[in-house]
C-alpha cells in the first residue's frame, strides 16, 4: 500500500466523517455559541484536509490557503464572541 492509497482511502474518509459529525452539532446546536465553536472546528478540520490533499496532489502551494484559513477562523471566533457579548438578551 503506497502512501497515496493510504491517504486517499483511509485518511480522507476519516476526516470527512469527523467533519460530518461536527456539522451535525453545527445544525442542532442549542445555542449560538455551540454553532460558533462548531464552525471553528470545521475550519480546523479543513486545514487538515488541505494538508493531506497537498500531499496527494503533490502541490505544496496549497499550504498558503491553509494559513489564510487559520487566520479567518481566529478572526471569526473573535468577532462572534464580541458581538455575542454586545447583543441584548431579549433580541
Amino acid at each position, binding site marked *: 500500500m503506497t*502512501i497515496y492509497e493510504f491517504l486517499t482511502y483511509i485518511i480522507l474518509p476519516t476526516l470527512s466523517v469527523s467533519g460530518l*459529525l461536527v456539522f451535525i452539532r453545527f445544525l442542532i446546536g442549542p445555542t449560538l455559541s455551540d454553532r460558533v*465553536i462548531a464552525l471553528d472546528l470545521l475550519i480546523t478540520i479543513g486545514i487538515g484536509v488541505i494538508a493531506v490533499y497537498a500531499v496527494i496532489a503533490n502541490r505544496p502551494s496549497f499550504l498558503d490557503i*491553509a494559513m489564510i484559513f487559520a487566520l479567518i477562523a481566529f478572526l471569526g471566533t473573535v468577532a462572534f*464572541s464580541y458581538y*455575542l457579548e454586545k447583543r441584548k*438578551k431579549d433580541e
Partner: protein
Amino acid sequence: MNELAIMIIISLGTLFILLAAVGILRMPDLFLRISVTTKAATLGVGLILIGMTLYFSDVSIGTRAVAIILFLLLTAPIGAHLIGRSSYFVGVPLWKKSLMDDLEGKYDRKSHELRSEDLEEIFDNSLLKKETTENKSNDSKPTEGKEN
C-alpha cells in the same frame, strides 16, 4: 521506512481529529465541548502538518507548516477563552450534574467586571488589623514590634 513513519504520524493526527469530532457531538455542555475540541483538534492538525513536512522535506514548506502550527497554538486558547467568557455572560446553562460554579455571583453581568469576594475579605481583615494595631499602639507602644 520513511513512508511508514509519515503514515503513522498522519494516522495519529486523524485519530485525534476524529476524537474531537465525537467529543463535540457527545459532550453535554458548551464549556465541556470547548475544552474537548480546542486541545484535541489543535494536536491533530499539528500532527498532520508535521507528517506533511516530513513527506515534502523542504525548508520553505517546513517554515509554512511551523507558522501554521504556531498560529494555531497561539490562537486556539485565546478564541476558546473569548467564546467561553461571552457565552457565560449571555447565560448559557451549565450541565445539570456540574458540581460547582466558581464564578457564580462574582461576575457583574452589566459592567462585565470580576469581583472577588475572597480578596475583599482579606482587604477588610487587613484594615481591621491596622485599626487594632493603631489602637494598641496608642495604648502601649513597645509591644507592637514583638507582635509583628
